[in-house]
C-alpha cells in the first residue's frame, strides 16, 4: 500500500513539476517565437507580395480587433504614402490549413499579389499553388475571386483542385477582412504615415 502510494506520489509530482516548468518556458519564449515565425514564415511571403517598399512590413505591423478576433495587418509604404496592406488568411487545403498572405492596393482595393506561408500539400501537386504561375493570377484582381470552373478567372492546378479552392477561399476571406477593416486601416496610418516613413529606419526604432 505504501509502495503504491509512493508510486502515485512520485509520478504525480514529476508530472506537475514538468508541467510547471514547460508552461513557464512557453510563456517566456512566446514573444521571441512569434517574431521568428514572422521573420521566417510570413517574411518571405510578404517579400513576394510587396517587392518595392520603403519600410519593414513586419516591424510596422499592427494588430486590429475585429469582433474579438485579432487580425495582424502589415502596411507597405512607398514614397511617404500607404501603398497597400497585407494580411494573412487560412484556407482548407488537402493537408490541413494553408496560410495565404494577401496584399491589397489601397488605391483601388485590388489584390496586389499573394504569397503562401504555411503549406502541407502534396509535393508536385498541391504544392504547386505556391508557384508564381498560380499565385500570379491573383494580381490586379478585384475580390471575390473564383476558379474558372465557377465562372471566375483563376485557372486551378490540374490534379490539385482542393488546394486551388483553398487558396481562393483564403483570398476571399482576406478580402472580406480588408473591406471591413479599411476605414480603421486608413485612420491608423494616415496621421502617422509621414513620421513612419520620412525618418530613417534607425530613427523609427527609437520611437
Amino acid at each position, binding site marked *: 500500500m505504501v509502495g503504491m502510494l509512493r508510486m502515485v506520489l*512520485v509520478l504525480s509530482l514529476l508530472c506537475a513539476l514538468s508541467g510547471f516548468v514547460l508552461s513557464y518556458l512557453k510563456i517566456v*519564449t512566446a514573444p521571441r517565437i512569434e517574431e521568428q515565425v514572422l521573420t521566417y514564415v510570413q517574411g518571405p511571403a510578404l517579400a513576394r507580395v510587396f517587392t518595392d517598399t520603403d519600410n519593414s512590413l513586419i516591424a510596422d505591423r499592427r494588430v486590429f480587433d475585429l469582433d474579438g478576433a485579432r487580425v495582424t495587418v502589415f502596411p507597405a509604404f512607398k514614397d511617404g504614402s500607404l501603398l497597400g496592406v497585407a494580411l494573412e488568411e487560412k484556407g482548407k487545403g488537402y493537408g490541413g490549413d494553408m496560410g495565404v498572405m494577401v496584399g491589397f492596393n489601397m488605391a483601388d482595393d485590388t489584390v496586389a499579389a499573394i504569397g503562401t506561408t504555411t503549406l502541407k500539400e502534396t509535393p508536385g501537386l498541391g504544392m504547386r499553388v505556391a508557384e508564381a504561375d498560380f499565385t500570379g493570377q491573383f494580381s490586379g484582381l478585384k475580390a471575390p475571386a473564383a476558379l474558372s470552373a465557377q465562372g471566375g478567372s483563376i485557372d486551378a492546378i490540374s490534379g490539385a483542385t482542393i488546394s486551388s479552392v483553398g487558396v481562393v477561399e483564403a483570398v476571399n476571406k482576406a478580402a472580406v477582412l480588408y473591406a471591413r477593416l479599411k476605414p480603421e486601416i486608413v485612420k491608423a496610418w494616415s496621421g502617422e504615415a509621414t513620421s513612419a516613413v520620412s525618418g530613417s529606419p534607425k530613427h523609427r526604432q527609437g520611437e
Partner: protein
Amino acid sequence: MSVMQDFTKGLWKELPPFRLLLGLCPTLAVTNSADNGLGMGMAVIFVLVLSNMIISMVRTIIPKKVRIACFIVIAASLVVAVELLMQAYAYPLYQQLGIFVPLIVVNCIILGRAEAFAAKNGIAASVADGLGMGLGFTLSLTFLGSIREILGNGTWFGKSVMWEGFEPLSIMVQAPGAFICLGLILAGMNMINIWQAQRTGHEPEALKQGCGSCQACASADTQCRQG
C-alpha cells in the same frame, strides 16, 4: 570505471549509431546535410546530458515499477524545452528538422542510457556518459551528413568544396543514400576493428558486438565461461 572512461566509451567503443545501432531513425532521416546532422546532434546532447543528470539525481526516490514512466516524463519535458528554445533561437534549423525534434523523446539512446546507466550510477558519471554518447552521436551524424552533402550536393556546411564541373549524385541526399552510406561506414568500422584486433592478436571485437548497452549477453557469456 573512471569518469573519463564513461565519457570516451561513447566516442568509439559504444558509438551509438554505428556500434550500438541505436537512434537510427534521426540518423538516417535528417543527415542530408552536415548542418542538419550537427543541429540534431546538439539537440540530442542537450537532452541526453540533462536527462542523465536528472535521472541520476532522482534515481533513489523513483519506485522501480514506474521508472520507465518517470524516465519518459523527464525526457519528454526536456524535448519540449528544446523544441521551444529551437523555435525561439534557431528557427531555420527547426524548419529543417521538423518532426524529428519532438521525436527525440522516443530516441532509443535517451531511454537506453537512462535505464542502462543513469539509473545505476552517480551524477558525475552519468553526465560524463551522456556527454560522451551525445558527442559520439553528434560526430556520427555530422560525419554521415558531410559525406552525403559532399557527394550529393557538392557542398560542405553550405560551402562549395568540389571541383568545377562536379556532377552531384543526387541519390546521396535522398533516403536511399542514407542507407548506402550507413552500410559503408559500418563496413569500414568493422574493417578497422578486425585489422586492429589482428595486429594486437585479440579476437576481433566486431564479431561479438551489438549488446553494449544492455550487457545481458556479456554477463551470460562470463557466466558460461565460469560455469
